[in-house]
């Protein structure tokens, strides 16, 4: 086998997604960005690579001793024992990465982001990349082949506990060769960090409430409709209007009347009162937030509008709304329960706000045309919402800034809106990158510019898209509840089983806490005596290690584990993050590991008690 065949075989075995992207790329005969690649011999066995882009040449390796250069380059990195994510911009001829690989810790994840497909295929043809491609710690992303893969990998591997330990490195000269991709690479990293912080803030604020709401809302399961079933009832070519409550909504509410019956109007919870004031009933309304005030749904007419709700939404709203309900998402505990009857589905992800959730819903329903109105994501004067209302966001501390407005100037926005703005832009980019046939029209007529959308006035958009008649209520009438009585019975048994699981976990945790404390004492003694002894030879530490493994395995396998995790982690997140940091000393790291585990177990024990009490209603 030549290099290409061997490398492709390894790609097929270890990087399936990229392998398929390579094949599709070849089949479609897509053009790559033009790069001229030259190589020269050096004093060592490896060659030096030079790229010529737009008439300028960039030498990627030392022309004299590239191996020695790569060794000296890699010498700057030290990796700890914990999970650490390294993002490297550029593959080049792989020399730097081979040397970096030699330094990776057992739990280090290396994400190689290569912007150029041409360069990637060149390396696959001319270099033996076997060591990199078969290393399970290494993930290769080729931006031109798979533009969303980097974002996905960051979501998969970077979390609140390891985000501070992230390492970012750049292949020499790559930032000059690929300046736009370089910007995109850092933008992805920044967006991911922001996403983690928004999630962390949300979780910290709502962790107990999420658990409580989930358990209180389970009663809706027998009658609810799942998204898959809703999808079957609505033609994809029906234009969808997502009505949000931004200040610009006041401008064009009246025009919605003419769109009714010629589109699917989805109204977010905060905007429903404005629509009802105008006597316009949306086709669907959506609520996902755990603390959304019940006042939004107190109008009697709300119950006649089917409600898309998250299982974590305010249970008062869910109870007050007596009409039909569509389940928004399927994750955590609910996902485990639905898996009992093979009805679990992939997590949609809400993007953090009800408007982003409405957009994600439309994506899931595979609509071809989405119109956004009232989606300002910016202030109008001091107003944050329609009707001249000013309201602060929970993520406001992330900062306020000015962003490009739809009119071309600048407009003032705030922390949480920036996160949602980026989410919309990313989502639209993903739609484009994946080749989906979907147009997103921003008909807000004000606020921040959402890159990737087409700008239209609502009047124009309604005239262009809302021509055909469409009666949603008639279509929805044909849709039956998604779970049969027998399926719900099985789920109900699962809920009851959860209480037994909690009792079993709590008992095991008590023993686990005791063992972790003993291990900390034993390891502390070794540190004081300055003795370096293998962990296997420390009886209490070894015992605690195996107990922790068994206990973690048992609790993670429990149906109720997502609830436990939600309930327990939020209050101790900062301390866990502190204890997760690498101290540079393996014994101290182990002490911190057992302290961290102990802390988590104490929180989990408390969570077991709290959740058990909530489950009594079942």
């Amino acid at each position, binding site marked *: 086998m030549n290099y290409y065949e061997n490398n492709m075989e390894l790609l097929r075995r270890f990087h399936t997604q990229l392998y398929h992207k390579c094949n599709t790329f070849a089949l479609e005969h897509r053009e790559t960005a033009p790069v001229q690649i030259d190589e020269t011999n050096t004093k060592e066995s490896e060659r030096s690579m030079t790229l010529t882009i737009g008439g300028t040449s960039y*030498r*990627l*390796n*030392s*022309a*004299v*001793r590239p191996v020695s*250069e790569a060794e*000296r*380059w890699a*010498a*700057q990195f030290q990796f700890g024992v914990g999970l650490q994510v390294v993002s490297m911009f550029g593959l080049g001829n792989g020399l730097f990465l081979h040397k970096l690989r030699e330094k990776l810790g057992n739990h280090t994840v290396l994400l190689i982001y290569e912007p150029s497909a041409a360069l990637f295929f060149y390396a696959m043809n001319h270099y033996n990349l076997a060591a990199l491609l078969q290393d399970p710690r290494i993930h290769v992303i080729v931006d031109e082949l798979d533009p969303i893969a980097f974002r996905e990998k960051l979501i998969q591997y970077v979390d609140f506990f390891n985000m501070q330990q992230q390492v970012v490195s*750049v292949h*020499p*000269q790559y930032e000059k060769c690929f300046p736009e991709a370089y910007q995109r690479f850092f933008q992805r990293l920044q967006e991911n960090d922001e996403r983690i912080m928004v999630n962390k803030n949300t979780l910290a604020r709502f962790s107990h409430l999420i658990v409580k709401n989930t358990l209180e809302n389970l009663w809706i399961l027998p009658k609810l409709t799942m998204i898959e079933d809703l999808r079957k009832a609505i033609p994809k070519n029906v234009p969808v209007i997502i009505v949000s409550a931004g200040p610009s909504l006041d401008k064009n509410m009246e025009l919605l009347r003419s769109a009714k019956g010629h589109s699917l109007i989805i109204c977010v919870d905060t905007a429903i009162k404005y629509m009802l004031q105008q006597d316009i009933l949306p086709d669907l309304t959506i609520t996902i937030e755990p603390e959304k005030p019940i006042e939004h749904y107190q109008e009697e007419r709300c119950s006649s509008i089917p409600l898309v709700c998250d299982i974590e939404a305010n249970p008062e709203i869910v109870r007050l709304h007596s009409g039909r309900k569509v389940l928004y998402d399927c994750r955590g505990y609910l996902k485990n329960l639905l898996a009992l009857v093979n009805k679990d589905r992939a997590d949609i992800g809400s993007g953090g706000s009800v408007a982003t959730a409405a957009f994600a819903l439309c994506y899931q329903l595979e609509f071809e045309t989405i119109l956004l109105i009232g989606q300002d994501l910016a202030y109008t004067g001091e107003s944050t919402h329609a009707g001249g209302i000013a309201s602060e966001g929970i993520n406001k501390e992330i900062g306020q800034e000015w962003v490009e407005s739809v009119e071309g100037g600048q407009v003032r926005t705030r922390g949480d809106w920036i996160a949602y703005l980026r989410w919309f832009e990313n989502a639209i980019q993903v739609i484009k990158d994946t080749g989906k046939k979907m147009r997103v029209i921003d008909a807000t007529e004000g606020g921040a510019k959402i890159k990737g959308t087409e700008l239209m006035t609502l009047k124009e958009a309604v005239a262009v898209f809302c021509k055909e008649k469409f009666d949603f209520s008639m279509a929805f009438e044909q849709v039956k509840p998604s779970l049969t009585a027998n399926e719900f019975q099985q789920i109900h048994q699962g809920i009851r089983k959860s209480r037994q699981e909690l009792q079993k976990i709590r008992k095991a945790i008590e023993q686990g806490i005791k063992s972790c404390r003993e291990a900390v004492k034993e390891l502390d003694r070794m540190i004081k005596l300055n003795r370096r002894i293998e962990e296997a030879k420390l009886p209490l530490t070894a015992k605690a290690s195996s107990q922790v493994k068994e206990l973690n395995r048992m609790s993670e396998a429990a149906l109720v584990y997502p609830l436990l995790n939600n309930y327990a982690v939020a209050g101790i997140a900062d301390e866990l993050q502190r204890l997760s940091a690498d101290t540079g000393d393996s014994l101290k790291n182990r002490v911190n590991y057992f302290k961290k585990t102990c802390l988590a177990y104490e929180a989990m024990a408390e969570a077991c008690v709290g959740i058990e009490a909530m489950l009594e209603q079942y």
Partner: protein
Amino acid sequence: MQELKEEIQALSMKISAVTDFFYQQKEAEAYQGMELILLSVESVTGQLFQYKQKHPEAPFDQSQLILVLTEAMRAMEARDNVLLADTLEYELKELLLEIEAGL
């Protein structure tokens, strides 16, 4: 003479340290280090040229030294850090150590 030899050896070590900075893309540290190197290079070459005037039979070629320094300056002007590091490490340093051995 011993002093000059020691100065060349010290300069060689500085060159290696700065080359590391360049190879590790620590540009700010590298160019700070370059300032020190340039001062040392000025001092060492000044002494070497004086020595050559007094001892024309000395086994080194001034023009070769000038050529390497010119190459380094060109790489510096072009901000081609890899080329600059290569020139410093594998041409200037090797040439200086060769001269030092022959003194």
